[in-house]
């Protein structure tokens, strides 16, 4: 049979001589250099975070750095930074594809290559991948790459975030692999190409210079390592770094029962109309140490910019497998060694140009991850992970200040942050980036000081978390009031069903939704000097729904009997001063049987307003007495009533 590298002696079983023969250095050196590589990418990212001007970099951490080996090794990606996972999975291929198309033989010391084409390199056009070839004595030894979201890349929407763009020509400027720097000088025509097409260039230019400086930082630190340990040891350590997660993933796969596992997830609609839902289907075949992950049957590509590219889907696959199978070793290209992804071109998670536009690629990639979670749930048992809030429900507002200064929000005032699903380890957090991000949350102070926005509410919604022995995270509600006239794109594309799937006997989190409250004829917060109520259904009657399963009369969330309000009904919202957008994310999924949750933990949830007294009795079978609003520390458990309630539930076959 063909030798695919499977079945090699495990690293831990190698003798010192065998280790040295395989990796060109001893174990200690390989470990030092592997850690050194992580230090280098983290140092680069920290430096960019501290010096960036653009809020999407400074406040969101929307970038990632990686290290890859040379062409002779097929560009193994040994190291990824702790920032945006969505980037790092695709960057193995971004580096390979860009360098191969440009020609590795054409690269010289002092060059920086760049590429942003989603179909060549993953992600979307705003995410330019800058690649620095690092040489030692005229030998191209390695690549350091920094991919960073640029605030704008042209296209029909300022800052780009929209689910209704119809083709690649509307999404923005596509940059094939080309030089940004040559001989350590900026290539003038490359920068002009970008700045003649993109908005907000006064922010883009200094950030690009900072990115370049951080590539130089990475290069300098690598060259120090070449000098001290030698190039052979460096390259050996790259192989060692990718072999470790390859081995651990193979072991995790081997531990699964052989078989076929299937799952799916749905995207509500695209931006054309609400007549089509899009299904991501996955069939995972496990045999021995290998997995085949087949997306055949997945819906054709969407008609607007909610598609993902093939490398985004590969990222989602790898991240999902790391979560449920092998969470303890580093994520890099080695994680895929025993995994084959079967992916037809032209689906919603493998879009093709020009009619399969890719911009909100995570809205298709996250369902890929959730479909894999669902498929593997029966195989992984208690290691199953509940679904998270799923969709960024991204909001993008823009306008002009009275003095003529343009302003733009990017992913600050929608449903971009929210809850995770529970695991065997405990309750889920309620506020973070979704599973494929690892971002910062823009500070309220930063938003309010730089933009004509007041953040009115940013809080958890009671009784929205998926219940379970371990509770999912609660939905996040955010009210943002715009002080000037503005235009907005709002993209909550996953509200029809909750993304927060419960696992291992846990229940789903509640669906999210989005509304616009106009000050004129709706709810004028500034004039009333009061906030818009959250739980009173009547408060929603004067709203304009943006997306969600809502009661058509009150417009409050009604998951069981409500009707679907489609996010694309208004591709560009126009608001007056003091209008408010409200976003509620989906809740996170629960883990385990909720009726076995210790009553003391339910009491704490009631005290902290994750769970109401009514839901404690209904969903957990725990009877709490007292008033969580007026005397939260005076709440108590009625133990006799709880025993009776849980017995009643058991007798009814519900517990």
């Amino acid at each position: 049979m063909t030798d695919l590298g499977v079945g090699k002696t495990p690293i831990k079983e190698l003798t010192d001589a065998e280790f040295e023969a395989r990796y060109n250095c001893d174990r200690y050196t390989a470990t030092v250099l592997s850690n050194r590589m992580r230090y280098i990418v983290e140092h680069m990212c920290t430096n960019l975070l501290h010096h960036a001007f653009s809020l999407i970099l400074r406040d969101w951490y929307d970038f990632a750095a990686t290290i890859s080996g040379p062409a002779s090794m097929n560009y193994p990606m040994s190291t990824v930074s702790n920032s945006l996972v969505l980037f790092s999975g695709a960057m193995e291929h971004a580096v390979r594809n860009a360098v191969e198309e440009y020609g590795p033989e054409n690269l010289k010391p002092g060059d920086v290559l760049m590429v942003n084409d989603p179909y060549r390199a993953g992600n979307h056009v705003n995410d330019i991948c800058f690649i620095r070839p690092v040489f030692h004595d005229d030998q191209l030894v390695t690549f350091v790459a920094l991919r960073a979201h640029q605030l704008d890349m042209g296209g029909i929407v300022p800052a780009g975030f929209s689910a209704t763009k119809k083709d690649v020509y509307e999404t923005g400027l596509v940059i094939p692999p080309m030089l940004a720097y040559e001989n350590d000088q900026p290539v003038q025509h490359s920068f002009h190409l970008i700045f003649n097409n993109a908005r907000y260039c006064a922010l883009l230019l200094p950030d690009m210079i900072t990115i370049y400086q951080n590539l130089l930082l990475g290069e300098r630190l690598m060259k120090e390592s070449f000098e001290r340990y030698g190039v052979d040891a460096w390259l050996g350590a790259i192989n060692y770094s990718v072999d470790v997660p390859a081995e651990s993933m193979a072991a995790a796969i081997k531990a699964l029962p052989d078989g076929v596992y299937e799952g799916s997830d749905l995207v509500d609609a695209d931006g054309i109309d609400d007549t089509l839902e899009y299904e991501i289907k996955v069939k995972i075949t496990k045999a021995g140490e290998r997995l085949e992950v087949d997306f055949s049957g997945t819906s054709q590509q969407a008609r607007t910019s909610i598609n993902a590219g093939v490398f985004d889907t590969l990222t989602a696959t790898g991240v999902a497998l790391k979560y449920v199978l092998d969470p303890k070793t580093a994520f890099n290209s080695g994680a895929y060694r025993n995994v084959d992804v079967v992916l037809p071109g032209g689906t919603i998670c493998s879009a093709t140009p020009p009619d399969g536009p890719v911009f909100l690629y995570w809205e298709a990639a996250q369902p890929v991850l959730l479909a894999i979670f669902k498929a593997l749930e029966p195989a992984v048992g208690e290691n199953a992970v509940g679904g998270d809030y799923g969709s960024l429900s991204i909001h993008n507002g823009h306008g002009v200040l009275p003095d003529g200064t343009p302003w733009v929000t990017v992913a600050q005032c929608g449903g971009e942050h929210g809850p995770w699903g529970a695991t065997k380890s405990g309750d889920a957090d309620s506020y973070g980036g979704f599973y494929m991000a690892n971002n910062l949350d823009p500070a309220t102070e930063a938003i309010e000081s730089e933009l004509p926005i007041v953040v009115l509410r940013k809080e958890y919604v009671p009784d929205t978390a998926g219940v379970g022995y371990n509770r999912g995270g609660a939905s996040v509600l955010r009210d943002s009031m715009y002080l000037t006239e503005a235009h907005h794109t709002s993209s909550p594309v996953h509200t029809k069903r909750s993304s927060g799937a419960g696992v291992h006997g846990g229940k789903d989190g509640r669906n999210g939704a989005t509304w616009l409250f106009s000050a004129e004829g709706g709810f004028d917060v500034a004039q009333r000097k009061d906030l818009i109520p959250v739980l009173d259904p009547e408060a929603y009657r004067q709203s304009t729904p943006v997306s969600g399963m809502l009661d058509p009369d009150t417009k409050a969330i009604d998951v069981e009997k409500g009707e679907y309000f489609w996010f694309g009904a208004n591709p560009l919202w126009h608001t007056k001063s003091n209008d408010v957008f409200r976003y509620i994310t989906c809740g996170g999924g629960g883990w385990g049987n909720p009726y076995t949750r210790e009553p003391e933990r339910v009491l704490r949830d009631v005290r902290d307003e994750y769970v109401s007294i009514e839901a404690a009795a209904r969903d957990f079978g725990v009877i709490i007495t007292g008033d969580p609003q007026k005397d939260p520390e005076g709440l108590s458990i009625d133990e006799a009533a709880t025993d009776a309630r849980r017995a009643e539930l058991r007798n009814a076959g519900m517990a």
Partner: protein
Amino acid sequence: MTDGPSVAPGLSVEREDVSEDELRELGVDTSGAPASDFKRYPVLSEGGWYIVIKNQKTMETVHRKKWTLLGPIKLVTDGLHIA
């Protein structure tokens, strides 16, 4: 009264038959399995796109060859000859 939404049609990867002659030419040891057990199709994995031949009963890969960088994705500029 309007119908509810439908699910957009799905697409699938075609798994091609492989003949005994092809397997022999590639030097594949089939361990006695008939050629009908084997299929050829593209996969994306560590290192990029490959065309693989796998035994569909055991999922063992018996042949693996690098494919194009972008696999099934065609760029709008593919086929454009700029002299």
